């Protein structure tokens, strides 16, 4: 992210850095710029809240256990084919 100094962030810049902001990948100064913009922007504040909610929902999904027989099934099927040494 480019440091903008004291220049206020616009909506396009806010949008471009929203994923990084929610993923905690911005510096404190960059994050402060995001928060400042959101606090005064009627479009970006709800956009941030919505993206944050979507992120939480996705990350709340558990990792699933594959069927117990799957590994054996794969090994059986793959034993019937030969690995190739080169493939594009």
């Amino acid at each position, binding site marked *: 992210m480019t440091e903008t100094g004291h220049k206020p962030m616009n909506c396009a810049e806010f*949008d*471009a*850095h*929203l*994923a*990084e902001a*929610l*993923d905690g990948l911005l510096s404190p100064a960059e994050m402060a710029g995001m928060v400042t913009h959101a606090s005064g922007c009627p479009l970006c504040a709800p*956009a941030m809240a*919505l*993206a*944050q*909610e*979507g*992120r*939480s*929902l*996705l*990350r*709340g*999904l*558990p*990792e*699933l*256990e*594959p*069927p117990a027989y*799957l*590994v054996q*099934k*794969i*090994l059986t*099927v*793959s*034993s019937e*084919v*030969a*690995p*190739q*040494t*080169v*493939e*594009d």
Partner: protein
Amino acid sequence: LEDVQAVAGLVRRAVAGDAAAWEELVRGYNRRIYNLCYRFTGSPDEAEDLTQEVFIKMYRSLGSYDVERGAFVSWVTTLTRNLLVDHFRKSRQDRITDSLDAAPTQDEDAPTPAEQLADPKAGPEDRVRSQQTQQLVQQALGKISPELREAVILRDLQDMDYREIAAILKVPEGTVKSRINRGRTELARLLQRTHRQVM
């Protein structure tokens, strides 16, 4: 994080016909591939078939994996993603899109989907509700476009970084971030709409 050299060694042994090395690779990656396929398709049966297909394809092309060009996990994920895209294209015409309207009902005091998934002190009833929420999230995931779906799955469920995702999807990092944003937003919007409908 995978040990790049150790995995490269396993791959070399598997290519040379070492069954134990191949089994180790299958055991090491089947869970990740199954989850990627399940979250993309929303179907345990399709996920199982596709996981199997990925491994057959992987076995046949193991010799083309080049450790210098990136981590094995990225190579495997690219292979899986390409197969999922092919599968999506083939099946798009007869895909059945389940309606979120048919989602389980919730009572008026029900917390929002996000609150349900986030609650660490959930009791038995909450857990049932949480399972329903997970189903709703999965259904919503199936409703967003495949481009957005794959981006959020790779980022939020497979925990890959933007650079890795950009390499897998063959798009610039800026596009990856934009798709992740839009995917998260569309998913939340769909779930909010569902929540309002059942109130």
